[in-house]
């Protein structure tokens, strides 16, 4: 409202208005937040700074939780704009009761207040067919930096199944001057909490009938964005809250242990796995007389052919499944409905199986914390435990191999739900020797520099994940178009493309490509230049210009083996041949080698890459390993014509 006035004038007007109408800061008596008071230590690496934050969670009873959030954030630059917006979702279990906001300029003078009509109310359905979820969104749209926003939000949960989390530094690039979480509960309420990267215990207080817990942080600097870092959530300060006993709609439960939480989930969905009679018949027709393994195969195939993923999330539908009859009659459902349906079919066929809660996502294999039972799950799969081996089934994917758990759900703690309650187990992990890519390339270079290339590759286990997705979603035409976009060579045509996918428990894909590349070999006068690594050049280089702070996280363990033979025109002799490279490091082993016999160049390359977490101090060694590979992969042969 005032920022267009000259500074001096604005100051005067603001001051008057503040005093007269008290539209100033909401903390009575508190100072406003001029950006210049931010210490330099908090500005480093930061796009925004939380000046002050107070989150209060008041648990009145298991069916009434009030949350107030009051925060002041200074936005330092345009990149920090994402921290300036207010966004929250609501549904039948959560109500946003009020939102207040004020925008301040660099001096900390109020520019304007939030108008209720400026809050956008948006559908939260996203990819769901339908959902109760809605979103409130507000942004002041201010492009003079720095500036400061202040929000006060009141939220009510009509349940206590899940409670808010506190992670004051939501991203690396936000520094925090001060942030505080207070939880107030009735005296006899059992609050469960888990702190991550927080030193010390909460300050506890007793006030008559209430008990309070307070966590506070001060002066957390922003953290530089470093490559190959562990997920920020594992490094950030956070407090997770969970109830001991809770209520959701008409359901009550406890979650002190995984067993208890599993029990609640089991009861919530009990009796929903009854198949209609015609489906029972179908199951018997398909499976009677088969072995256990054959039955699972048959029924999983049936599921993949007869159902599809459609998500409808209404009421407590996020946790309670649609029943088996719903899926049978409609032929669709979400992860819960399809998993429940799969279990029902297996049960009818006499195969023991259970639904399994999982936190799915690539690079998110460590969200479920064994020592802190809570509802932090976002997906459901099926587990059929056998005497010798356990079969895992992803029921929302109609193309994936039976029993295979890729990067979305593999290698993590998951909760099996059955009549005994819950049991935390791990999904399969795949080893370096299983995640293999073997590639044979046969190429022929003509006098003109044009080259014909035949590529045979086999990918297995995790190395199939990306390709599997493409092969099962794109037409052949689009696949070949996609291969042209990869940019293997400066200018080339993809002449043919074929593949065969073997969907075993350890799936693999065999692939053949034929390419004609123009000008691959560079010819200048009597010399020919060729990079013999035709198809598998690493693209990652690391720079070592500052002291590494975060540990190193390498998500993949894999092995690549490449063999390339290139036939060149007669009459050329080598002038320069790259030396053989052999690299040893804690992160893996790499070797590459060129030999020339007559007019045939043979190039071999192999890498064993070991995933895992490594200390920050080994970053220099990692950079050396990667950069040496990068260089070796681009080394070239120089040939001279006699």
């Amino acid at each position, binding site marked *: *409202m005032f*920022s*267009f*006035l*000259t500074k001096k004038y604005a100051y005067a007007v603001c001051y008057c208005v503040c005093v007269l109408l008290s539209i100033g800061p909401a903390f009575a008596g508190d100072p406003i937040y001029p950006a210049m008071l931010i210490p330099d230590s908090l500005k480093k690496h930061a796009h925004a700074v939380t000046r002050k934050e107070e989150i209060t969670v008041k648990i009145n009873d298991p069916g009434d939780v009030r949350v107030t959030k009051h925060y002041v954030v200074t936005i330092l630059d345009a*990149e920090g704009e994402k921290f300036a917006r207010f966004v929250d979702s609501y549904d039948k279990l959560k109500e946003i009761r009020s939102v207040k906001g004020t925008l301040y300029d660099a001096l900390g003078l109020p520019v*304007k207040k939030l108008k209720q009509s400026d809050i956008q*109310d*948006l*559908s939260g*359905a996203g990819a769901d*067919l*339908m959902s109760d979820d*809605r979103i409130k969104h507000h942004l002041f*749209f*201010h*492009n*003079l930096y720095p500036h400061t926003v202040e929000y006060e939000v009141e939220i009510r949960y009509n349940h206590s199944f899940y409670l808010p989390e506190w992670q004051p530094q939501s991203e690396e690039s936000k520094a925090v001057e001060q942030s505080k979480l207070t939880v107030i509960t009735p005296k006899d309420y059992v609050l469960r909490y888990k702190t991550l990267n927080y030193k010390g215990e909460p300050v506890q207080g007793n006030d008559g009938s209430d008990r309070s817990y307070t966590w506070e942080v001060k002066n957390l600097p922003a953290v530089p964005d470093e490559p190959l870092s562990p997920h920020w959530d594992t490094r950030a300060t956070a407090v997770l809250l969970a109830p001991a006993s809770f209520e959701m709609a008409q359901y009550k439960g406890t979650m002190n242990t995984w067993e208890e939480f599993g029990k609640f989930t089991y009861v919530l969905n009990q009796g929903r796995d009854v198949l209609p009679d015609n489906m029972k018949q179908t199951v018997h027709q398909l499976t009677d007389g088969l072995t256990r393994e054959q039955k699972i195969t048959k029924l999983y195939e049936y599921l993949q*052919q*007869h159902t*599809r993923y*459609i998500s*409808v999330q209404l009421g407590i539908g996020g946790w309670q499944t649609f029943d088996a009859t719903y899926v049978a*009659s*409609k*032929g*669709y459902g979400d992860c819960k409905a399809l998993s429940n349906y799969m279990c029902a079919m297996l049960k009818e066929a006499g195969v023991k199986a259970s639904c399994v809660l999982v936190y799915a996502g690539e690079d998110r294999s460590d969200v479920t914390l064994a020592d802190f039972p809570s509802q932090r799950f976002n997906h459901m799969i099926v587990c059929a435990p056998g005497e010798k081996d356990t079969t895992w089934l992803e029921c929302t994917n*109609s*193309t994936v191999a039976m029993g295979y758990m890729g990067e979305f759900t593999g290698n993590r703690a998951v909760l099996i739900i059955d009549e005994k309650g819950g049991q935390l187990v791990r999904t399969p992990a795949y080893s370096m020797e299983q995640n293999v890519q073997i590639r044979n390339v046969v190429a022929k270079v003509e006098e003109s*520099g044009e080259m014909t290339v035949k590529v045979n590759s086999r990918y297995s286990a995790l190395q199939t994940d990306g390709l599997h997705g493409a092969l*099962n*979603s*794109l*037409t*052949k*035409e689009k696949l070949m*178009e996609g291969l*042209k*976009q990869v*940019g293997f060579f*400066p*200018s080339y*045509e993809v002449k043919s493309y074929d593949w065969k996918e073997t969907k075993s428990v350890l799936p693999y894909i065999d692939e053949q490509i034929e390419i004609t590349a*123009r*000008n691959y070999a*560079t*010819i*200048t*006068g*009597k*010399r020919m*230049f060729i990079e013999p690594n035709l198809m598998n050049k690493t693209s990652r*280089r690391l*720079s070592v*210009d500052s002291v590494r702070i975060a540990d190193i996280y390498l998500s993949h363990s894999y092995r690549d083996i490449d063999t390339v033979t290139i036939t060149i025109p007669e009459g050329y002799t080598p*002038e*320069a041949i790259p030396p053989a490279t052999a690299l040893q490091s804690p992160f893996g082993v790499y070797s590459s080698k060129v030999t020339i016999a007559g007019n045939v160049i043979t190039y071999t390359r192999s890498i064993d890459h070991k995933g895992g977490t490594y200390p920050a101090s080994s970053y220099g060694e990692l950079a050396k390993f990667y950069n040496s590979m990068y*260089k070796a992969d*681009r080394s070239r042969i*120089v040939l001279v014509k006699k």
Partner: protein
Amino acid sequence: MCSRSIVFPLHLIVGCLISCTAFSQSKVKFGKITPEDFKPTSFEKDTSAHAVVIADVGSSEYEVDRDDLNLVFRQYRRIRIIDKNAYDEATIRVGLYHVGSAEEKLQNVKAVAYNLVDGKVVETKMDSKSIFNDKASKTVNIKKFTIPDVKEGTIVEYSYSVSSPWQYQLRGWNFQDEYPVLLSEYRVEIPEFYDFVFLKQDVNGLLKHKADIDRKTFNLTYESSPTAAAEHYSLSANTVKNVWWAENVPAVREESYTTSLSNHTTRIEFQIAALKFPNSPVKPMISSWEKFSEELYKHEDFGVDLSKNNAYLGDVVDGLVAGLKEDTAKARRIYNYVRMNFTCTDHDGLYLSKPLKTVFTSHNGNETDINLLLIAMLRRAKLKADPLILSTRDHGVTNEMYPLAARFNYTVATLTVDTLSYFLDASLPYLGFGRLSSSCYNGHARLLLEGTTPAPVYLNPDDLLEQKTTYVMVMGGEGGSLKGSYQQVPTYFESCSMRAGIKDKGKDNYFKGHEKDFGAETVISGVEVEDLNDNEVPIKVKYDFEIKPDEAGMLYINPLFKEATLKNPFLSETRFYPVEMSYVIDETYTLNLTIPEGYTVEELPKSSVVKLNESDGFFQYLIQANETAIQFRSRIKLSRAVFAPDEYTELRRFYDMIVKKQSEQIVLKRKS
């Protein structure tokens, strides 16, 4: 509007309804599915498609709703789902608009899946309760439903109607889809009292049209008060029944270097041109450009505030231009103030999202808000400024013949000083005075001059020249290393993105990222950037570099270092649509290389000059050496930005030649 007539007998109303349903005459009928229909169709043009649309039949016609006419749109689709990737075709989303009590209504939804089980057709109907309403925004609800029992090979069928009170908003129709379409048909019945302009885009010459004259009577009922007897009116009129159809339409393809797919799909749109009710004078709805401009100037959501005094702007404008004499200096100051102090929330809209005064106080708005405010401020400073309206490249082209507001989606300002014009866009903070983003270069635009005929302005990408010059000087360093200095004036748009990168990462870090582009191990130092804060001109970059020797004995040097064109940008062998680049390029690169001590030239690439056709562009690769130095120059110049599909092969070959020549190496040999 309507002439009075006798009370209308019921059987005739029924008769009218029957004729309405009989209106759709496609051979494909809802529910008539036989096992034959599951056999692969004769349509083999796109065999790898995930689905084939067997029929997509739509219609629009006017129907009576009590005392008014509604536009009723019907759609019927039958699709064969070939594989899982087309399952989404079984989920239907219909957007419905509403304002106040006026709303579009979804009616008569039918949706069925057909599967072939043991040689018999099994049908599964969707339960009408499964239609969800998702409130997407204040004015739009999305009705969503999904068809049950869909598998690979299923045929799905659905139909619905949308009844709309907005009588002039006659829906257009796309005859082309993500999947191939066997029959796409759109029927439109227009009573003679509405005059529409048809805007047809027939890309592949597949569109057919037929029109029949008919007569129809509309019976309207008025109730002046709840107690009074209803009054009936009837309006008879000739109607024209149009049908457009296309058969065996290939799927839409996406290609790089296209402005908007909508320019390349077969479709039809309608624009109300006039109202011709009996006993009333003809009321033109589509006007001349003069009237269009006049109306926009009077429009509450466009120009009405421009002609006001806008006294609230006085202090700020006076403050900004104080002490300045030159008109362009004043304009520049005002432009920079608006650009730096206002946030653009949306770059797609011809109209104001709020009154100009609110834009001014809230400091944000869409691009029209911001640029009309800029015009108001320029005018307040007694400068000549007018709106230029246009359509951005992703929004399709405008129609030069008809002033159709819907075809425009963007407003910028035009400043006129003496005989010179400057285009100003204050909604993009990275732009400079007199510059527009390349997305505005989309052909015909209109300059709205108050009180006179709006002038056509052609923003052609062919006229937008992006020049880049690079100068590199290299000398030998110690131990076979190469030391050099690099100077570049990148193109204007490259400069814009580099400014953002430098701002984000810091100058040194930003250029450190360029080190790996040299290929061999390289260190960049002494970075200097000029004109970093002057958005009107390209930046000037200067730095020193040192390349460590790669191979002992010989030095292999690409004379272009990191500036070589490594890949042909035209990846596909064939082309369906024109290549539409955003601008015309002209890139010059010069090298002076002092041969390092102890080395002699062993081999030099050959000089070469290649022309693209006669005059569409050229590529120069010129190199010469003497005892001590090598001089090199490379230039790529195109004379236009748009190439027809049949010119594609030549263009691609031209780039092949560039890539090939620019990969060649100078070979220096150590003297023995």
